[in-house]
């Protein structure tokens, strides 16, 4: 998807439209930012940003009035793309909203979204200035299920009637590293892998998803091949069946003609018999 997915309202003022063109240019020039299709008749945008930490952010921009003056910008984050794409709410899922607001509210809409997206694309650096981004990066996927919102005052629960989610988690099992071979393998991985742990996990998940998709495609292809073979066989059978049917139809038509001739002859004979009877 690309900047073509942006919904720019032609009723917006020229500066706003110009800023949206800037946003489109940034999307097209930055592989960490992509736009997804969104149904927003009054204008808006749905962006997915992949941070340097490997975390994914969704920026949903919607205009309530169509004038670009009452615009809501909602930022939510997740560890996996499948958690964040194509879904709205955060309840019960490993997705949390981030209470982020730009300092440049006076700027046109597109400029604000660009600033936000670029900040999230370099989220490790942003985290050094904004602690709530750091807390989002530090939270595990399991923790995000119970966290609804990251604020300046800390994480807030997804359910407002719940206690803060700090004490809801059990500690990591202490025997997690009792298997020495597993521990050694992990140490080797930690020291040899130059990439970030989250990035590696993300890549592994993506690779697993791609393998699943390839297997599904192969399965579908085999099913399609089998279906095509069956269709050809049915066509052959129909062709073979059609020929006797045509022969039968021809025979019936011929028989009908013969019966019609016989009837005509019979009528003629009856007529002659009547005339003969009358003459007699």
């Amino acid at each position, binding site marked *: 998807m690309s900047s073509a997915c942006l919904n720019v309202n032609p009723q917006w003022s020229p500066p706003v439209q110009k800023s949206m063109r800037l946003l489109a240019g940034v999307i097209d020039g930055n592989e960490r930012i992509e736009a997804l299709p969104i149904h927003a008749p009054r204008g808006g945008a749905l962006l997915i940003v992949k941070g*340097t*930490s490997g975390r994914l952010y969704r920026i949903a921009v919607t205009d309530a009035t169509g004038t670009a003056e009452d615009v809501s910008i909602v930022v939510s984050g997740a560890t996996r793309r499948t958690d964040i794409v194509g879904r709205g709410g955060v309840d019960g899922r490993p997705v949390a909203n981030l209470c982020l607001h730009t300092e440049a509210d006076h700027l046109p809409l597109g400029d604000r979204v660009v600033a936000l997206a670029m900040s999230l694309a370099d*989220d*490790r*650096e942003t*985290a*050094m*200035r904004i*602690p*709530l*981004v*750091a*807390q989002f*990066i*530090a*939270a*595990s996927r399991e*923790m995000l299920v119970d*966290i609804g919102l990251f604020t300046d005052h*800390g*994480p807030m629960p997804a359910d407002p009637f719940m206690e803060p*989610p*700090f004490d809801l*988690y059990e*500690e*990591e099992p*202490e*025997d*997690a*590293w*009792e298997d020495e071979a597993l*521990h050694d393998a992990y*140490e080797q991985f*930690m*020291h040899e892998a130059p990439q*970030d*742990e989250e990035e590696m996990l993300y890549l592994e998940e993506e690779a697993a998803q791609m393998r699943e998709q390839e297997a599904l495609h192969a399965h579908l292809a085999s099913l399609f091949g089998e279906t095509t073979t069956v269709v050809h066989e049915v066509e052959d059978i129909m062709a073979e069946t059609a020929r006797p049917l045509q022969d039968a139809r021809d025979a019936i038509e011929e028989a009908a003609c013969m019966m019609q001739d016989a009837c005509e002859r019979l009528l003629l004979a009856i007529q002659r018999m009547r005339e003969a009877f009358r003459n007699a």
Partner: protein
Amino acid sequence: MHQMDVLLVTSAAASALPLNPELHPWLQGTPHVALLLVRGASGRYYRVAVYAEPTVPAQHAVVVDGATRHTDIMEGWSPHIVDIEVSLDEQQAPLPTKVVRLVERLMDDRMMAMREPNIAQFIAASRDQLPRIVSFTNDGPERVEG
């Protein structure tokens, strides 16, 4: 401190390092009481050093350093090691109890990060960022001057 060591070595995520200056040259001349290595749930490493205050009897200081790699944290000094400001809970408790609680919190550092933003910032920082940071304080990262 003996009780603390016995408790900690039962966990594979935390261990006491030998106070041997030959193994750890930076210990030379420093009045360490205990040196502990902790691996957090995030994969980050923490070095908890308990010092005896030479001027004040029975007073100790606890210093926590952090790094992203085991090889970094095992070095005495490295640009990839940063100081981390932490608070000890239960001020009235004995020092070993305080240190044990601290180590337990560091072992579950992702959860600790939800309460203490500077821990979150340390977890969020990449290894490449650490040389530009001196310490993670409660007021944010303290950066290298210049």
